[in-house]
């Protein structure tokens, strides 16, 4: 990084360059050290938890019995949230970048950015007090009319605190971050590409499909992964909104919903002691690894697609 300058020309190096490259290097190293430190902490503190017996892994019999449903719940809630948020975010971003009048688009952009600044506890309270009861009639309808689909077998809680509500709250939470990035990407589409498409007789939608999407595809994936990261680790909103249990279930509107790792830690940590703490930290390590895997996967997708993005 520091010596990426061309060796042949041997550029002049002033004191400022040295200081800056030093601090930049330091900052980069610090990130790695922090990450390694956290990984180390989780591993050391959590290691006894992996082999804990049933006394510390209540209500499951062993660590796998506890962590399995938690991983399932974490991935499920985040995936559902992503499925709701990404199409909406792409739509909002397209509207701001390509459809809205300039003045409106600026205001909208600010508004979306503002949404990202709302703390998760506020989303959680909104979800449990306002949103969940409002969704109950929809859940009841789903339960009564399409209850034969396993996703909607119910029974719905009168408070509406289930996986579907969590997915909606999480989707709202990750919407701004995805929208903001997509908007920036779409704005970067080379005007020449767009004009070329229009000149070939494309309508505005066809232009977006032919020029904007191919150019921004890897960016959309990156944005989605950022959102997924937030959804995976979201704690408070899930804790407040979900009616949790340790089980595997695809029933999105039932009373018993698979809990998530972060929310389970928040719920059980205050009263935990000894080995129970190790078990919770071990589940934290699992979450840490999941986010790693998700990010590597995202990076792989982005890299594979980057050559065809039309950006070069």
């Amino acid at each position: 990084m520091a010596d990426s300058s061309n060796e042949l020309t041997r550029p002049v190096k002033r004191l400022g360059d040295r200081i800056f490259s030093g601090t930049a290097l330091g900052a980069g190293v610090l990130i790695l050290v922090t990450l390694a430190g956290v990984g180390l902490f989780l591993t050391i503190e959590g290691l006894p938890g992996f082999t804990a017996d049933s006394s510390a892994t209540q209500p499951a019999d062993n660590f796998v019995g506890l962590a399995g449903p938690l991983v399932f719940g974490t991935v499920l809630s985040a995936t559902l949230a992503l499925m709701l948020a990404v199409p909406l975010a792409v739509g909002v971003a397209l509207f701001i970048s390509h459809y809205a009048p300039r003045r409106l688009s600026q205001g909208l952009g600010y508004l979306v950015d503002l949404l990202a600044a709302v703390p998760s506890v506020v989303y959680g309270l909104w979800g449990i007090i306002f949103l969940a009861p409002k969704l109950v009639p929809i859940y009841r309808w789903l339960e009564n009319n399409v209850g034969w689909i396993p996703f909607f077998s119910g029974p719905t809680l009168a408070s509406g605190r289930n996986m579907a509500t969590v997915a909606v709250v999480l989707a709202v939470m990750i919407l701004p971050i995805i929208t903001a990035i997509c908007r920036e990407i779409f704005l970067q589409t080379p005007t020449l590409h767009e004009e070329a498409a229009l000149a070939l007789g494309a309508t505005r939608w066809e232009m977006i499909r032919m020029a904007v999407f191919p150019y921004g595809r890897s960016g959309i994936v990156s944005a989605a992964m950022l959102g997924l990261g937030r959804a995976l680790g979201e704690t408070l909103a899930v804790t407040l909104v979900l009616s949790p249990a340790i089980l595997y279930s695809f029933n999105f509107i039932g009373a018993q919903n698979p809990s998530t790792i972060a929310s389970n830690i928040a719920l059980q940590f205050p009263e935990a002691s000894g080995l129970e703490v190790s078990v919770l930290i071990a589940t934290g390590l699992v979450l840490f690894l999941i986010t790693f895997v998700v990010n590597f996967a995202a990076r792989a997708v982005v890299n594979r697609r980057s050559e065809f993005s039309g950006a070069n």
Partner: protein
Amino acid sequence: MIKTPLHRRTAAPLAAAVALGLGLSACSASNEESSGGSSESGSSSSSELSGTLSGAGSSAQEAAMAGWRKGFQEMHPDVTVNYDPVGSGGGREQFIAGESLGFAGSDAFLEGDELKKAQKRCGGDVVEIPAYVSPIAVIFNLPDVSELNLKPETIAGIFAGEITNWNDEAIAADNPDADLPDLDINPVHRSDESGTTDNFTSYLDATAPDIWTVGNIEVWPGKLGGEGADGTSGVVQSVQSGEGSIGYADASQAGDLGTASVGVGEEFVSYTPEAAAKVLEASSQTEGRGETDLAYDLARDTTESGVYPIVLVSYQIACPEYSDPKQAELTKAFLEFAISKEGQAASADSAGSAPIPSSVAEKAQTALDAIKTS
């Protein structure tokens, strides 16, 4: 081009995980911080107390502790009392580990290995007194029903998911005058590990073992069904928002919700602080313990008239001897205040707890007398 900075942004989920990890480490660090000791030079006249007293443990006691601390510090302005609500297990652990704590608050009395370790730490019998009795109310949300009688078997059936409708015969039989609706019952339980769940299931386990088959538990097992909610406030909120819901919560938090009268023997007892405190009188002390160790085997299945058996009893654990006489003095004075009439009134005020019966308070006072202060 534009892509490079974007890819870097994928580091944010990692950062989130990092933050989670840091948060955890911060939490566990704060657990260990609650030292304090009692290092204050001050005037050493025995009438005027000064210094810092540290305790940790049960989070159920937190509100009561606030009342005791306030009252105690009004009497002794130079004393600072710290209480870290890390949870009962954590409090016992810290108490056993060393002298940083003057006392620990615990929803369960010491047993087995922990008792031996605590005795070793104290160099003799431990001092254990029940200072906090908190009634657990069975709260329900039925707009047209103001009074509800439930037998233990019925409560167990409801929370085990076997009785699912409010017009079930088992409920109707005990409530001939009530207009019970044809409505699904939605049982609400705590989703966090909690002493309330522990005591509630201990009651069900003792009174209706045939129906309540999962025993005495602290974390609700998923197979029983029902809605899970975070903390006492979460349970109350869920019951309030859903017609047909029933839950269990600290009686002081029940608010406007109906509270069920529970079957004891042939009658139904509604919750009052006095009825709850009577449990201690009806119970016998655990055998094979030192004189200062007032552990009670709660008579959940008592048939004695006028006793409300669903209670949470939380103990204060202390040592008869401390290497630091000041710590001994402060611990003794503070716990004496806690079990005194004023102290119990203070906790009833701040936490809605039930004042301990005078017979128990007398025994506790005798136990506290064993703490050597010089």
